[in-house]
């Protein structure tokens, strides 16, 4: 029953999954990094980072996001299609809602 490979266009993704899942040790290492990053985030509450605070928080958030999605959700090892779905949804959300909020602001400034 090997009819699946017949589509050259789609077959690229084929067999992309299943392969190399990280080992438990690697997972633990990732979790440790995540823990450190979270500690760093929380530290902005206790220490004054000045103007750097908000950008730092955003960068940390993005890194954590990518790490969880990439390793725990296997985006790095799975077919690219899954990542495309996720980032399409995320992209749509960011663009649409930013635009909406901007409309409120632009309006308020008149």
């Amino acid at each position, binding site marked *: *029953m090997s*009819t*699946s*490979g017949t*589509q050259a266009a*789609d*077959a690229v*993704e*084929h*067999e*992309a*999954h299943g392969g190399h*899942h990280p*080992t*438990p040790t690697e*997972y*633990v290492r*990732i*979790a440790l990094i*995540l*823990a450190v990053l*979270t500690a760093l*985030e*929380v530290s*902005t*509450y206790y220490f004054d*980072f000045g103007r750097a*605070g*908000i950008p730092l*928080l*955003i960068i*940390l*958030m993005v890194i*954590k*996001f990518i790490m*969880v*999605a990439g*390793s*725990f*959700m*296997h985006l790095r090892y799975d*077919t690219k*299609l*899954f990542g495309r*779905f*996720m980032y*399409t*949804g*995320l992209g*749509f*959300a*960011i663009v*649409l*809602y930013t635009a*909406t*909020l901007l409309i*409120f602001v632009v309006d308020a400034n008149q």
Partner: protein
Amino acid sequence: MTAVAHSTTMGLDNRKLGMWVFLASEFLFFGAFMSAYLLYIDTTNRGPGIEIFDIPFTSVSSFVLLMSSLTMVLAHNSHLRGDMRRMRLWVLATAGQGMVFLGGQVYEFTVFFREGLDLTQSPFASSFYFLAGFHGAHVAIGVLLLLGLYSLSLTGKIKPGQDVKTEIIGLYWHFVDIIWVILFTVVYLIPELRV
């Protein structure tokens, strides 16, 4: 019929693909609640505002949720290796951490409520409770799924070969965690810096 992954067009498991498709749409769901929250962050109607947050407390529960992703992925890993006993252990651990997070949220909401942050108090209050609450509802559904997974694997209904089931529940769980990564920063930490 749901076919075995290797006889599908793209060589992907239908259920996994379906879960990813669904998760893509969830961003739009949480994004809308978040826009409302950002829009109303200062609209407190003379009630409590963001100063009410207890950052240390929320940090701890956020941390617990984050670490539950680790146990989730370990559960899946055990299932992959056919080690159902370990898998069940990690699943229970994950569900347990989820419940700790939920307990934390219930406690947090109760405290806020006592301090005058009522759903009907202000647009800020409504949008905060909705945003955090709907995330909590997602966690609760996740806990139910995990407990289901646990009991079905106990009865032998979920077999060692069916790791996709653990995997898709894991995907959902990690997604809910990821959303909290965003919410923790955007709802709690950044506003706190702004003051």
